[in-house]
């Protein structure tokens, strides 16, 4: 019997403290005054765990952003806090070599985070500065964005791993998992699907085997690992849950959003932290947008009543009111007006672009209904040059749900897309095809022919492998079949009350249960993949369910704490769906992700039209 209460969460602020202490330790190893160069995408994460005074305390005089320009720093000691990227290291080499050329002597230290790569050090060696520059690692794996969200802040995982096929971040993810296991484990069960998940599991398992475990009470019960490419449909859908909408429209960065003048109705922009500390936000973040207005106005009325209490108070009561309640009310007032402003701005933007029609087309694609109409809708969207990203998103959604486009449609839509948004998107289309996001339908014969052709070229064993290499071509999404087997699209003839959601489909207005979350639900319910063989076959396999022989009693709180690790990013909508599932089934989910993503971020990583 599922329990209705939900267990409490482990204290993840510990992770921040650990990261901060380690950074301090690394800085302490560089005594004396120094300037620190920080890679721009590390600034926000760094902000969450340390502040300027922490850095100042450790003799950092000036902070610079890495901008690939000649340095103006006058310090004798330069420290670079960067991601392990070849281009950044090359720039540092240029800085060092420029100093050498003018006979300037400085000390240089690179702190790679979360780890160093051999390829980066090879650059130091090739550029002749190996030794002049010392390196270190800051194992900052996980940033708690909220009580139940941990992000690795590695958006490039998606591109590097799925598009380029470079597995260098798998170990990093394994490291993050190991960290969680060491601090909050031991885990009793692990489930997963996808080849990256499987490899990560393998790596982690070896670490566990080699290490020793302290006897701690387990704080986390089971773990679910899932590759992003198991489900591309969900992140490509428009988000309609409040937090997801905010992310789609304003772009939440590292748990923080910047509201412009149109939201604040002043001439200033305001940065707002979005997490459970914000009481107003916490109540609406998982709500379907249609409920948000009602909620906010109710809240506003309550606030008014609370303020109105002042009427007829005597001095003493007034004093208590001011000292005890007013501050809270003012805070709530501020937050409320921000979220009302944001909702208004969302409404304005969405009505302007015919959001309703867009959603309707999207739902048709998910249902596999009126495909022709959807194609001409997308075509008009492209013809009118409406939004480059939206057009691409709809094209991909069409392709995945339909298992590829008819060759005729593919060519015509591609041509029109290139005409509307630039011919250099040829490269984007090539990337999308490689990933299987936007493809032409291929007759089954074509594939077999290709396979047997290749098979003749090489010996039989290699043939399988080569077919694997063609798998992006061959890989079919099978969305329709999956949708049927997992009942992802609820029957449309029933009214769906978004205020009282009955399943996870509410996050997409009742039109679609996210595939990723449905898999998690099913596997937890069945305690494994038994009975889901048809589904895993359609998903390309690589599923696993393993038990570690937990000593914890099965009904303890920890056993109902499930850690879900998304390799390649997850969306706020998925997080909302899991929170819903948790409430319904008595679980509590902790989401760990390589980065929070959405359709724009996902597709931007695949755009080919930049140098």
């Amino acid at each position, binding site marked *: 019997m599922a329990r209705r209460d939900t267990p409490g969460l482990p204290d993840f602020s510990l992770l921040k403290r650990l990261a901060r202490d380690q950074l301090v330790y690394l800085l302490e190893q560089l005594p004396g005054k120094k300037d620190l160069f920080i890679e721009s995408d590390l600034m926000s994460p760094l902000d969450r765990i340390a502040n300027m005074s922490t850095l100042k305390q450790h003799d950092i005089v000036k902070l610079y952003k890495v901008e690939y320009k000649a340095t103006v720093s006058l310090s004798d000691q330069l420290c670079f806090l960067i991601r392990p990227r070849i281009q950044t290291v090359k720039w540092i080499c240029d800085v060092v070599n420029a100093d050498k050329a003018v006979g300037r002597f400085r000390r240089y230290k690179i702190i790679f985070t979360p780890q160093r790569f051999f390829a980066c050090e090879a650059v130091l060696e090739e550029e002749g500065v190996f030794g002049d520059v010392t390196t270190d690692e800051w194992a900052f794996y996980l940033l708690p964005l909220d009580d139940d969200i941990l992000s690795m802040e590695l958006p490039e995982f998606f591109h590097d791993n799925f598009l380029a096929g470079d597995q260098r971040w798998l170990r990093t993810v394994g490291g993050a998992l190991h960290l969680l296991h060491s*601090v909050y484990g031991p885990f009793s069960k692990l489930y997963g699907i996808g080849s990256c998940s499987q490899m990560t599991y393998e790596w982690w398992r070896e670490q566990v085997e080699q290490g020793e475990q*302290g006897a701690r009470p387990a704080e986390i019960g089971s773990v679910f690992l899932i590759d992003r490419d198991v489900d591309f449909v969900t992140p490509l859908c428009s988000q309609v849950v409040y937090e997801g909408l905010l992310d789609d429209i304003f772009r939440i960065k590292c748990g923080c959003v910047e509201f412009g003048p149109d939201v604040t109705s002043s001439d200033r922009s305001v940065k707002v932290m979005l997490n459970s500390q914000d009481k107003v936000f916490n109540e609406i973040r998982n709500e379907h947008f249609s409920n948000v207005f009602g909620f906010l106005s109710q809240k506003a009325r309550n606030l008014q009543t609370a303020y109105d209490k002042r009427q007829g108070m005597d001095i003493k009561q007034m004093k208590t009111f001011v000292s005890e309640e007013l501050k809270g009310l003012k805070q709530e007032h501020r937050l409320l007006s921000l979220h009302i402003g944001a909702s208004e701005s969302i409404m304005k933007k969405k009505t302007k672009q015919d959001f309703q029609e867009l959603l309707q087309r999207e739902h048709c694609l998910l249902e596999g209904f009126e495909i022709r109409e959807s194609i001409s809708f997308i075509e008009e969207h492209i013809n009118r040059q409406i939004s480059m990203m939206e057009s691409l998103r709809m094209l991909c959604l069409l392709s995945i749900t339909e298992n590829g486009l008819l060759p005729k449609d593919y060519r015509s839509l591609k041509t029109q897309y290139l005409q509307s948004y630039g011919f250099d998107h040829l490269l984007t289309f090539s990337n999308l095809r490689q990933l299987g996001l936007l493809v032409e339908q291929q007759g089954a014969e074509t594939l077999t022919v290709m396979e047997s052709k290749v098979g003749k070229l090489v010996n039989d064993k290699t043939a399988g492998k080569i077919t694997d290499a063609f798998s992006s071509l061959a890989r079919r999404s099978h969305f329709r079949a999956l949708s049927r087997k997992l009942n992802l699209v609820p029957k449309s003839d029933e009214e769906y009350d978004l205020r009282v959601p009955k399943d996870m489909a509410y996050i997409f207005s009742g039109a679609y249960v996210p595939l990723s979350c449905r898999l998690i639900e099913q596997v937890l319910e069945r305690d494994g993949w038994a009975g889901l063989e048809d589904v895993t076959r359609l998903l390309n396999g690589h599923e696993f369910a393993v038990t570690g022989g937990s000593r914890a009693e099965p009904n303890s709180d920890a056993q109902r704490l499930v850690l879900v690790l998304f390799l390649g990013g997850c969306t706020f909508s998925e997080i909302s769906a899991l929170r819903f599932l948790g409430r319904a089934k008595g679980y509590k989910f902790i989401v760990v992700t390589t980065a929070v993503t959405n359709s724009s971020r996902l597709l931007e990583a695949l755009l080919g039209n930049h140098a």
Partner: protein
Amino acid sequence: MMRSKADEEEYWHSSKFKAFTFEDEDDELSRLKESKQAVNSIRQLVEEDDDDDDDDTEKVSWSGEPVGSISWSIKEMAGSNQKIDREPAFPRIPTEPSTLNKSHSGLSLSSLFRGKAKSENFQSFSDAFSDSVRIYAPELRKPKSEYKDYVCDWSPEETVQRLLQGKAVSLEKFRSLQDKLLLLDFAVAAHDGNVITAVLIYLKRSLRKEVLFRELQSRQTALRHFIHYLTESREQKLLLELLRALGRTEDMALLQYKEHLSITDENNKRDFLKSCLSLPFSAEDSAHVQDHYTLLERQIIVEVRNPFRSGLHWSTGCLMLRSCCQAADRQAERGGKVEIYQRFPRKASILNMPLITTLYYCCFYHYGEPEGTFSSPLNVRRTFKISEKQYFVTALAARAKLKAWSDVDALFTGRNWLGFTRKKSPLSFHRVVDVLQRNSAPTQVLQDYVALIDDAELRISLAQKLKCHDIVISTFRDMKDRQMLVAYRGKVEPGSAPERKIDDLLNNQQIRWKN
């Protein structure tokens, strides 16, 4: 391999530590320990084992790992120092790629054999290492004299194991192709991209590229890593050679084409695109690249060059005359002679804009021009085979923006066989209305098109939204819907013409209302 002497000194002087050698190991170690304690005052010291970090100093090569940087053990973080019995082991899941890779490592039998024979070793050896990579685990304790030999004895597999732990290793001793490939295959089997790339960099340095390419052909995972490495380090030339060797000509063409993105000068870019035309694209992409080139060439003519002087020929004298008058747009704008540039100053140059933007631009600034001029919308349409619908939408938006309503009207004009004009559109009329309304067309213009929307419901809702009262009223009249008409009366301004019209209808006895 070793850090240079000067550098080492520099490091040690800069830190609290002093350089140490193996001769005075104990002394230095105790100092190291002291400083560590000082720095780590917040946490307790690790088990003694960790003091053996010296192994790393000796062989620092890949990693410039400073000796003093004692990474945190996760156990410390968890705050538990006790050694307790092991976690019950998790089962191993055979991962497809690794087995596959071993089985076709190109060395056929021998490698298979070795791989299998070692697999036991694999486990036991790995057991010797404690914990995560960030903990620099102690080496197996051996007398120093034996130590050097031991280094040299590492097998490819053991070497990969060390790489996996971020430890210093020398790869130079793997000189036979067989050993090199074993290194690679073990790296691939370990699923660590970082290590795979490390081995590939070594192979790239020590193998002739033809040999490396040949071997990569049957190792897809390694190949992908190599391609990504070359892409990131921008070794375009080698990457192109690799793709050619693999027969991936389309990828090669796209990669070369991609270079145009970093060319800023428009003439250079055009010339580069021209050179791309002969690349082995797919037939489909080849046409797109051709269009890309033609478009940029066209944009340069329209934007910068005076077409007449540049020696382009037109057949008719009329056109010649025209092109004489028509200086290129940049000059026209600067000179301020042409009225339209004053009314609607150009926001940006047309260079490098998409085709449809260019078409829009031509519809905006060069609408009436005859088809012979390069800037004429009709010419653009013909050259690039733009679909009727696409052309229509673009022209509509551009002329609406200019509020050239007669041009807009003319776009729809078709004649039926009786010679009556009637409006037809390749775009559904509610979209037409949308385009017009976005360009703030007045109600008189809008209502003409709202009236043409077939679907009555859609027509009414749009008409209501856009306040085209006449249409709403007549639609309700046609539907004989008295109630709706009465309701609508409340929405129009009292005393206005629409209200009077409604009243007239409601008073009209001849209409047979359905309600």
